[in-house]
């Protein structure tokens, strides 16, 4: 053992100095390099994992939203169609109603006019008859040259006209 120490010049002071050197290296490495670096790496891993997780969740949410949107859209379309159909039916109905109303009214008006015209016609004919009688009387008086008493006249006229 002594010869070993002699050969290699082993000195406990040097040993202690080297132990101190190692301690310095360890503490410097640990506190300045390894600890913050590994913490950073851990943080980064956590952050990336979280980001990926978030992205997945967002994607899921998006696809769900899209699905919902499609569904809502289809529903809205269906509803709109229904409304349009309904409106069409109502309009048709209304149209028919109005048409029939209009026809009725027109018919009424025509009937009224017809009646009026008939009345007028009858009146005109009556007047014409009266006029013609007067004319005949006048012309006969002229032809006969004399005026018979009006009583006879009247009877005669009536006979002629009939």
């Amino acid at each position, binding site marked *: 053992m002594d010869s070993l120490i002699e050969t290699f010049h082993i000195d406990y002071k*040097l040993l202690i100095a080297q132990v101190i050197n190692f301690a310095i290296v360890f503490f410097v490495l640990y506190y300045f390099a390894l600890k913050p670096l590994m913490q950073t790496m851990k943080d980064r891993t956590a952050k990336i994992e979280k980001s990926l997780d978030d992205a997945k969740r967002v994607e899921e949410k998006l696809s769900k939203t899209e699905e919902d949107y499609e569904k809502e859209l289809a529903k809205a379309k269906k509803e709109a169609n229904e409304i349009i159909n309904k409106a069409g039916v109502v309009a048709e109905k209304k149209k028919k109603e109005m048409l029939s109303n209009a026809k009725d009214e027109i018919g009424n008006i025509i009937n009224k006019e017809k009646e009026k015209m008939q009345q007028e016609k009858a009146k005109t004919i009556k007047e014409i008859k009266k006029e013609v009688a007067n004319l005949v009387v006048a012309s006969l008086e002229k032809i006969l040259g004399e005026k018979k008493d009006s009583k006879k006249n009247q009877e005669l006229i009536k006979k002629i006209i009939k």
Partner: protein
Amino acid sequence: MSKTVGSEITTENKIEHKSMVTQEDNHEEVGVEARTEAHEATHEIIHEHTLFAEPIYRIGNFNITNSLTNTWLVVLIVIVVSWTLKKRISLIPKGIQNVFEMVIEGFLGIFDSVTGARAKSLKFFPLVFSFFILILLNNWMGLLPGIGSIGQVISEHGQKIFVPYFRGGTADMNTTLALATIGVVISHIFGVIAVGGWNYLNKFVNFKALAEIPKKVMKDPTILIINPIKIFVGLIEIIGELAKVASLSFRLFGNIFAGEVLLASMSAILAFGLPIPFMFLEVIVGLIQALIFAMLILAYLTMSTMAEEH
């Protein structure tokens, strides 16, 4: 030790190898006396690779060796790099941070295969990584030009000896022994924390097995043979712990020191070109040795924190 006579900067090219001579002499004090006899009258400067780190300055009775200065340099580098890194850490990695994160991730992957659980890897990581960085930088620093070739000339017993200012930190037994001791001692501390003091003590001095004998001997007589073996195995483990320290420190020291001697020998044969492949080899050896040391410490930590596995 003697005082400085004059300082001189020499290059690697001039390195001569006389260290072999000193070892052949079989002196107890390998350094000083041997040189004196071998080169009495010569006045050339002697370069040699001693097995120990040479002191270059003295404060009181504390020798500052060239390996210690090199380790200080490594500590300084670690502080500077860590400091700059700390200021630049952000959630979005850039530049140097990317490199460090890649290294950390890689290491954690390897650690998982040893510890078997990420939580344990994370717990041991800072300690084991500190070993790795300190040893790696020390190994590689020993390869830089200027380290081992810039120094002073010391006059000793009438001859001039070249003493470099820097020497690879791990090419000194003191460094490797200190690191190995820290590693093994810390593995025991972790063990005591994880398993509990009494249980941990029983791994080495197996009181439990001893206490079991009278209780169970009626039911199972084979316990009379098995439990003494258990106690003996526990005692062997104590020696095993010492062997851990020895194997860790000598492996690292031997590899790095041998590398330096090899490089010096190669440049002594032919300084141009020839050392280059060996330089690459030493770079790889430095990395591998640092990795082996760190991995073994990790294995010891894992083993000592596991509950008894008999």
